[in-house]
């Protein structure tokens, strides 16, 4: 029972307590180690002494004592004490820890930590890893699993990021007000990066890392709590919830299931409802916030369709057109072509793909979308060529299997099946967030 309590407190309180300790001591490693030690002591003491009435306060007081002891031990007291003394806004005499959701001051602490972890001087991959580690307290090996890298690689990445913060004087405070919008946008991009990593198909038992996706959504919820009513944040949350709501329908018999084929009764409709509610309150804006809102609206169009056939493709095509106008992105054009093909027929979709090779010279998605649309027009020889091109460009083992199966399933005559030499390379972008095709 107590072990569960400790685990629950860890999950709910880690980020807030760490943020307070980082604020006080201005040292990430010291704060992390002290807090970890406090949890170890809790695991040892609470079964015997009973769970304290205010567990976070107990942990914070313990962690502070551990940290101060360690500072003394390091022999830098003479140098550091003057710093602690003049830092008058540090609540080092504050012995109470308000309940979650109560104090905006505590929420500010997690925001400082998020701004720290997502500082633009850190590489985006490092920002994402650090945020998950420090703000949510997720184990390094779980983060490694999320990004499909070895444990040691992820540990090194996090260590390097913390060292960069320490040596390059990335500040611990909140950014200047003028920097706020850009910095919040940076955090939003980082959270979405972490989320999409969870849906990058991998090999073996763990095709997708859906429970880790849930953790990144938790990061989005924290962000929404500390930066309330921000259009980009709310749109991001809605988008993630909508994409995540399909998690139980995405995989069947060890394979990815395309959106059109998914069992929609397995979608989490309570989460869809929540996302739609969030989205309804977001005003039209501009820039990245508007990109996210349009992406979320597209996802919502899918989410409200009771069957694949009931999907409002013209509305989706229109949303993609608006998204393309804002971003000028060839990836968006590619996704739009799929929607247009559904709404107006495969020839209309193929027309949009014309000339995209220059913008998308690598990756397999352009070729695979082209192949599918060519198949629908009955141009099977061309479809086979496009599938072969896609296969030659595909770097993901799971999607490679899928493409190979698609090619094999084409009803080709023997002459067509043997194929001509491939077209000049056409390709698609690296695997991005789940879209119409992959679901």
């Amino acid at each position, binding site marked *: 029972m107590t072990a569960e309590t400790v685990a629950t407190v860890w999950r709910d309180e880690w980020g807030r307590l760490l943020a307070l300790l980082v604020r006080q001591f201005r040292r990430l490693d010291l704060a992390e180690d002290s807090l970890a030690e406090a949890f170890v002591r809790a695991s040892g003491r609470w079964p015997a002494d009973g769970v304290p009435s205010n567990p976070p306060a107990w942990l914070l007081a313990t962690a502070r004592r551990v940290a101060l002891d360690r500072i003394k031990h390091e022999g830098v007291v003479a140098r550091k004490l003057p710093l602690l003394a003049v830092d008058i806004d540090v609540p080092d005499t504050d012995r109470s820890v308000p309940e979650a959701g109560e104090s905006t001051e505590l929420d500010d602490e997690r925001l400082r930590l998020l701004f720290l972890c997502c*500082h633009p*001087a850190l590489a985006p991959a490092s920002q994402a890893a650090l945020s998950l580690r420090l703000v949510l307290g997720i184990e390094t090996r779980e983060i490694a699993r999320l990004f499909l890298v070895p444990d040691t690689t992820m540990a090194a990445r996090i260590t390097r990021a913390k060292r960069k913060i320490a*040596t*390059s*004087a*990335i*500040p611990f405070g909140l950014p*200047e007000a003028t*920097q706020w919008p850009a910095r919040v946008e940076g955090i939003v991009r980082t959270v979405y990066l972490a989320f999409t990593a969870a849906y990058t198909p991998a090999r073996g038992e763990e095709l997708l890392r859906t429970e880790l996706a849930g953790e990144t959504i938790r990061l989005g919820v924290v962000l929404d709590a500390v930066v309330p009513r921000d259009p980009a944040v709310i749109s991001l949350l809605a988008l993630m919830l909508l994409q995540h709501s399909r998690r139980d329908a995405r995989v069947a018999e060890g394979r990815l299931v395309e959106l059109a084929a998914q069992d929609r009764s397995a979608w989490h409709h309570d989460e869809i409802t929540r996302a739609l509610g969030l989205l309804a309150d977001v005003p039209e804006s501009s820039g990245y916030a508007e990109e996210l809102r349009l992406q979320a609206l597209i996802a919502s169009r899918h989410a409200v369709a009771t069957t694949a056939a009931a999907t409002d493709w013209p509305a989706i095509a229109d949303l993609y057109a608006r998204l393309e106008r804002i971003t000028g992105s060839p990836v968006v054009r590619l996704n739009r072509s799929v929607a247009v093909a559904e709404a107006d027929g495969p020839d209309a979709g193929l027309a949009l793909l014309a000339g995209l090779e220059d913008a998308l010279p690598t990756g397999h998605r352009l070729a695979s979308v082209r192949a599918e649309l060519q198949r629908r027009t009955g141009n099977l020889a061309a479809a086979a060529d496009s599938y072969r091109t896609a296969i030659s460009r595909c770097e993901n083992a799971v999607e490679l299997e899928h493409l190979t199966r698609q090619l094999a399933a084409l009803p080709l005559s023997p002459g067509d099946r043997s194929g001509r030499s491939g077209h000049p390379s056409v390709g698609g972008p690296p695997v991005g967030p789940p879209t119409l095709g992959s679901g």
Partner: protein
Amino acid sequence: MKFFVLLAGYGALTPWDAMSEEEQQQLFAKHADFPGVCAANGVEIVSGEALEGGSSATTMRTSAAGDVTLTDGPFAEAAEQIGGFYVLEAPNLDVVVEVCKALPPYDLELRPVMDVPDEP
């Protein structure tokens, strides 16, 4: 803490030789204003120098066996453009970025100077 600010490349800026006299005056003016911007932001300029062009550089390399080789020119192609540096005393990286926005829009490398304690 101290930061080494390297004027590493021209970035979007027109190279010096291609600048009009007026553009060169503007560039000088930004450098002349820089101490004021720093002071207003609590930043001290510890040192700052313009460097002669990359063609005047000499690269010195020492092999594992201890042989010293001198070659004509800068360390790397990319180093051709290094035009100068500042050493700034500033509270944190964000303040350094802020004051450096007042410089001409060079590509800059911002690198902390190692804080070696005085005591033994």
